[in-house]
């Protein structure tokens, strides 16, 4: 708790002034990001539903496309559904362990049968969500159901699919074909990987203020997919999924704008 003591001291020293500076920073930072993103004419997301104006569907602005869609499909379990008493809630630690760095596509923590190695079958659980008895957990919802080739970004752990050797712990099996015992290591070769730090959750400008959004919105602008419903990670589940316009209270954590200064 060294960090906490240090922050307390600094907080006393700087007080509210610093907080005010921070809020200005937020506004400037977010404004800039939105402007940049709007400049992208092309997006890979699906068409905006037609509203009777014109016949051609426009490509939506990527970062904005999902925010009101709440792409929990009609089939998805309702967000107000309580956790099944049998379920083990999803936790942040596992959420992070499945990703190589903040923003990396998570690997698949369960095996895949041959049948599940079909396109879009992933969707039958990860679009619908809900309690999966086989794992004793809720299935997380995908924030980007418009992508169909799930396995091009998300890969399973081969050791759980049964690829590899019948008994990797027993070198005697290996040595029947390989002259030297060749036990498959967990990694092909050790790696010195130091990922970007995870953003602190619950960043706020003031106590009780709505927390900031500490991650990119690209591919992850469909807030409720991850933050709502019984499948959401416990630490980041929203208490008020019924309020549809998330971005009216929650804004992107400060980027590089610095504090406001008159030109």
């Amino acid at each position, binding site marked *: 708790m060294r960090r906490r003591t240090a922050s307390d001291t600094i907080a006393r020293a700087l007080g509210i002034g610093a*907080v005010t500076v921070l809020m200005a920073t937020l506004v400037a930072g977010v404004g800039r990001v939105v402007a940049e993103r709007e400049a992208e004419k092309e997006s890979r997301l699906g068409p905006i539903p037609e509203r009777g104006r014109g016949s051609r569907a426009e490509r939506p602005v990527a970062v904005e496309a999902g925010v009101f869609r709440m792409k929990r499909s009609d089939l998805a379990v309702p967000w107000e559904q309580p956790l099944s008493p049998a379920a083990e809630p999803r936790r942040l630690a596992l959420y992070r362990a499945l990703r190589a760095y903040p923003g990396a596509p998570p690997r698949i923590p369960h095996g895949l049968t041959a049948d599940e190695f079909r396109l879009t079958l992933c969707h039958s659980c990860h679009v619908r969500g809900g309690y999966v008895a086989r794992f004793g957990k809720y299935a997380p919802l995908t924030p980007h159901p418009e992508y169909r080739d799930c396995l091009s970004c998300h890969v399973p752990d081969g050791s759980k699919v049964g690829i590899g050797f019948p008994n990797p712990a027993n070198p005697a099996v290996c040595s029947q074909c390989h002259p030297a015992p060749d036990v498959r290591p967990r990694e092909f*070769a050790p790696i010195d990987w130091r990922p970007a730090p995870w953003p602190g959750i619950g*960043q706020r400008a003031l106590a009780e203020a709505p927390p900031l959004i500490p991650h990119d919105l690209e591919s992850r602008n469909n807030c409720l997919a991850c933050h709502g419903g019984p499948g959401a990670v416990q630490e980041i589940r929203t208490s008020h999924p019924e309020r549809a316009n998330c971005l009216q209270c929650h804004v992107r954590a400060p980027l590089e704008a610095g504090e406001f200064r008159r030109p």
Partner: protein
Amino acid sequence: MSELERRAFVKRVALVSAAAMAGSLAPGLVLGEEWWIAPADPDGIVWKKAPCRFCGVGCGLLIGLQNGRAVAVKGDPSSPVNRGLACVKGYHSVLALYGSDRITKAAVRRNGRMVEIPMSQALDLVAERIRETIRRHGKDSVALYGSGQWTIPAGYVAAKLFKGALGTNNLEANARLCMSSAVSGFLTTFGLDEPMGCYEDVEHADAFVLWGNNMAETHPVLFSRLLEQRDRRPAVRIVELATRTTRTSYAADRSLIFVPQTDLAVANAICHEIVHRNWVNRDFVARHVAFKKGKTDIGYGLQDDFHFSEEAEDATWEEYVRFLDDYSPERVARISGLSASEIRWLASLYGDPSRKVMSLWCMGINQHTRGTWANNLIYNIHLLVGKVASPGNSPFSLTGQPSACGTVREVGTLTHRLPKGAVTDPDARRLAAEIWKVPVENIPSRPTWHAVEMFRAFDRGEIKFLWIQGTNPMVTLPHLSRYRRAAAKADRFLVVSDVYPTPTTDVADVVLPSALWIEQEGLFGNSERRTQHFEQMLTPPGEAMSDAWQLIEVARRLGFGHLFPWNYETHVAKIWEEYTRFHDTPEHRMAPLEELKRRPGVIWPYVNGRETKWRYNTRYDPAADPRYGEFDFYGHPDHRAWIWLRPYEPPPEVPDEEYPFWLSTGRVLEHWHTGSLTRRIPVLHRAVPRAYAELHPEDAEQLGVKDGDFVRLVTRRGSLVIQARVDYRARPARGQVFVPFFDESLPINQLTLDAYCPISGQPDYKKCAVRVERMGSFRLP
């Protein structure tokens, strides 16, 4: 404290103090322990653009950098290639920089053991060896074998050093193994290399025909663009011609499984149907197409020192129609495994004038003993119906390496090429001599050996010194056992520049540590003629040095410093300036470096500040002359594209009683090439830790093999014990076996056949005969 630092400090403090205050003011608030983790300092991560260094799609990535290390990756939303998406390899690509067994120091073999030496001494030794070998055995006794992973500057320096300064055409690259049939296909049909269209064709096409290409695994991000189009436009169809049922088949609307090698007959049958149904675009053919015959019964290059030279002979429309008589859908149905109605349906996709068609292919067509012909035949279909060089009508040859196009094809790091034109062309030699400032006599006019022959010459001893950069031939060469033995022979000297230990560095006499990807400044060129620049973002570990700079250092030691007078800071800019002089015509002009630094890649020809997205089309291509009509195929002197009369010929080795199965090799999504990078990335290694042999369930049952059992695969060249998988990821057709080639400890290429296309020199890794022996169950001791 500088102003910037002060501001950053104030901001950090604000964040931390806000967090602390909220915690103390609302003690009842339930928060995870994560609350107390200091917020990441977003100012600390800087994002810089680079093309992905895996496949030839060329996705734009943003690399997150912090404290001198790469810490994260995003797809670049501004890249027109991938629009913010990447595949699992791209997302995890930066992890490959940090494997703990990176080669960071040079090493030399002494008494059979590798001993580390300073880099400068190693470069001295390499230069001395080159000098000495040439003195004793002549110029053609030294050779350089490079890579489609070379940056454009590395390839350019290689060509200038070997062809211009040393004066030998002993320069090849691994791209010979993956796309030289595509090159000779383009050159024979259009007279100029590389596609006429671009990825934007995907948004215009109504039908996609994949010729033997498991695109969902090998070009996933581009495949996602196909899937997106089908979601958006209900009329879009994805059709696959394949020999295996793969993830791509599951995604396709229709998957047609044909017998290996009969793609040649199927393509001709499609043309037969187009002609007999009167779907030929007669106006287009009359104005823009000429007919040619080449040699037939051209052999397979299995014997050493095999030589072949193609001769084009004029043919007529009537001759072509008579030629097609052999390929009625009924007749082709008998050998191809497709039904006549399936062939007719395929032909109708191409023939329907209201439908725009994009054909896509990669190794199934290129790694083929008739690879050049197979490429020609797909172009024939498109040319007959006039569906070429306009948005959505696009025969599109994909590539598998990040700069197979940009470096190997455009710079011409192949024995018969120069940066512009062929070595046999006196004008091409003159231009090269002028730009390189070397005497024109320096540049030899005769090609020497292409990749397979180069390694055979190394085995025979005609090549004594071989330098390999950025590739792993001791896993990738077909009929591998022969070439592994070659490297061990007494008077051969092998230098290998790489980033990780591989079976190729294992047999080297000198190992040089290379910079990897964003540890150097460089340029790549992808499959759609897009050139992409990346700056040096990281310091290479230890004494690692870019391949380009290694070549420059050796060139200077050989007394060619005056040809390479650049300093490290500006050498990429200077090289780009010099190299682009070769392409300074409207057919191939490249964008200036400043433009490339600003943008997520630029498609060439770049003329008057505009990319040329569709070549040969007078509406889009300033080099195309409207006097020839809507299109001008200016690659050939007659301004026409050529339809070739290419027959079906059988493969050199077919299954028989002794070896009753077909053996095919290829890739899986998670690994790239020989896995020397992707296997060091934990998430990818764990996903597919070992190679395996895919069997059809009925074959497995007949053999008494269950999923996960071991089998022994035996060909005339070698054998391999490997785990059998049944319906794990894909399913080969009956009578076929598929093995991915990424696993260095299960080198399937010991079994493959080194037969190649006589025109392109590209080997066929997809077809040879194999026996599958059941190993029985293991008894635990």
